[in-house]
């Protein structure tokens, strides 16, 4: 009797310990995203992608119950991101770190992932080097060189012999500029000039005028999404650049749904490169867009699909390793994982742990009186060229 009582007390005491509340068959995921501040919309789209996947799969990943702890970085703030990652690991005992919309935050949390040996899924941040910072990290979005080198090579092959590049003066912009210029020159085209524009509230008209004066066959543009594409469209209209005559090339942001709405008809003819668009014509995507609209009353974008597929990857890894939640088992299971996504077939490169996917070249066209991105070329199984070059 006494022993039984002792055991009872012991059990009760154990149930009070935080580690013991970690019930059998539950996987705990720590999500780090900029839920507040100027990137809040990005975080919402990623989060909604995650929620939709979980809803479609009965809130279970790899047969395990899922518990999610959400943490807000409030924008670009690496010290906070790192602290949140550390706290998620030490205080909340999460098994997996996920989310990461912004490169500086992902880089800061990568150290925690490496140190604590935790599986980390980057669902958006697109600077090439991120995945090299922790051996437990995989990415389900895209990389800046991946989409832009593909775009540059395609453009040159399709008759653009001269290009002018205009990028915002920050990490992803500079990455995009480097990637585009490198691939464009390598393909045989010539870059007639380039400019880096201020991050905050730039006045595009002067830049656009300079581009027009040089009269290149194409202009490559990389600017942050949000309010800037609209302003850029206005400057193009004012200075008389018609994307149907001078090819305007860019990354997905400049012609996503919101950008097109704010730019209006001047956007017609813009060519972008990206891994996803809600107009992609495949049955899985049609289903995805329908479900997404039913729950969140808007169209998904490449952020949503990053979150959706990131959750899918966790599901695959947990299924494959039989529910083991330690970093080594999970990353081993994630390497080489491949699945069908609304964006098309995709996989995780077993060597670099980065995403391999189809890159789509799309052109803005008017369909049923509405501006949409129409796929004009697609390149399956594109690896991140930056890391491929690193390995050589």
């Amino acid at each position, binding site marked *: 009797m006494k022993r039984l009582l002792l055991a009872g007390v012991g059990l009760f005491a154990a149930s009070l310990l935080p580690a013991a509340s970690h019930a059998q068959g539950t996987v705990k995921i720590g999500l780090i995203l900029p839920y*507040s501040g100027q990137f809040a919309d990005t975080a919402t789209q990623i989060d909604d992608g995650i929620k939709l996947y979980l809803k479609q799969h009965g809130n279970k990943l790899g047969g395990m119950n899922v518990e999610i702890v959400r943490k*807000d970085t409030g924008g670009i703030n*690496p*010290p906070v991101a790192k602290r949140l990652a550390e706290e998620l690991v030490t205080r909340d005992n999460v098994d997996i770190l996920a989310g990461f919309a912004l490169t500086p935050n992902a880089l*800061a949390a990568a150290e925690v992932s490496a140190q604590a040996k935790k599986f980390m899924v980057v669902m958006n941040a697109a600077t090439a080097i991120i995945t090299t910072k922790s051996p437990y990290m995989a990415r389900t979005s895209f990389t800046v060189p991946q989409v832009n080198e593909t775009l540059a090579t395609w453009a040159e092959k399709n008759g653009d012999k001269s290009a002018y590049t205009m990028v915002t*003066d920050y990490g992803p912009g500079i990455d995009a500029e480097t990637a585009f210029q490198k691939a464009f020159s390598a393909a045989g085209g010539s870059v007639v000039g380039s400019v880096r524009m201020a991050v905050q509230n730039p006045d595009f008209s002067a830049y656009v005028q300079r581009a027009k004066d040089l009269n290149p066959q194409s202009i490559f543009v990389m600017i942050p999404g949000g309010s800037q594409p609209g302003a850029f469209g206005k400057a193009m209209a004012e200075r008389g650049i018609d994307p149907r005559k001078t090819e305007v090339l860019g990354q997905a942001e400049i012609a996503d749904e919101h950008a097109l709405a704010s730019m209006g008809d001047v956007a017609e003819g813009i060519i972008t490169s990206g891994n996803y668009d809600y107009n992609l014509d495949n049955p899985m995507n049609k289903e995805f867009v329908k479900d997404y609209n039913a729950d969140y009353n808007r169209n998904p974008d490449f952020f949503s699909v990053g979150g959706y597929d990131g959750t899918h990857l966790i599901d695959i890894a947990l299924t494959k390793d039989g529910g083991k939640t330690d970093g080594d088992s999970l990353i081993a299971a994630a390497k080489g994982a491949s699945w069908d996504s609304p964006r098309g077939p995709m996989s995780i490169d077993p060597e670099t742990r980065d995403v391999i996917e189809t890159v789509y070249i799309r052109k803005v066209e008017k369909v049923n009186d509405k501006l949409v991105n129409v796929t004009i070329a697609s390149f399956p199984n594109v690896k991140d060229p930056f890391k491929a070059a690193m390995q050589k």
Partner: protein
Amino acid sequence: MALTRSFDAPGLYFQSRTRWRLVEIVFWLATLLPFALLPDYLILASQIAITALFALSLDLILGYAGIVSLGHAAFFGVGAYAAGLLSKYGWGEPITGLLAASIAAGIVGYATSFVICRFRHLALIMLTLGFGLMLEELANSAGWLTGGFDGLQGIETWKLFGHFEFDLYGYVAYAYSLAVLFILFVFARRLIHSPFGLSLRGIRENYVRMPAIGAPSRAHIRTIYTISAAMAGIAGALLAQTTETLSLDSLGFERSAELLVILVLGGAGRLYGGLVGAMIYMIARDRFSGVEPQYWYFWIGVLLVTVVMILPNGILGGLAKLAARWSRS
């Protein structure tokens, strides 16, 4: 005041001010509690200590000398980048990193103090704001040095005293930050309760009249501004060293504005104001954002409005008033 009763009076006055009170001793002992009671919160505690040090540095100029600054993060950032760059290029020793950071920030502070000391009030807000923005853009454009938008990569802090490694749980980070905060707090406390500190308060109250009684306003402002800048630089270096990450936000406008909020919340012009403000603000932030990751700023807003409406002189100002009323009755 009975200052002129005898020649000893000023000395006695300062002595009575510098004596450590029981509340203070209890306060500092309480800062050790997290080690025993909340070992899961040490990383947060270390960042609170760093913010407290930063707020203390602003208090020296804002609370005591009346210099309103909306660009104090500039010095925080200069210190952080000084320590970060030093570490990136091969010297990750923490203590010397702090020294280097304080020197770098102090030099920038001294250089700008020549402009600062000529202006008061609104003009100062514009000046410090503009200066902060300039520095931020400079750091942004010097991407080859600062890493630009993506932040500085490759910071590695060596073991403290060659012995204690900065761990995942933050034991060393908190001990280190707290020790530095305490040392600089004692220094600031001594400074404020000195004739120099008293003349600073005189300058705050009447900038023009102070020179008439032999306290050169401009020279004093230059001195305190430089000291404050160096201290902010040390806070920045602490953050860079303990987190081993660094990006442009460390010298951005938002950090300056947040700091001002923290100081006003705690109570400006009281040594402990910044400390208490940092504690309350950061704990509230941690709690609110944990419960409501999307709209937690709403609750921060509620907290600020409530505190400012009920306690216009900050939390410590309110407490002091309560204490005064209690001792009278």
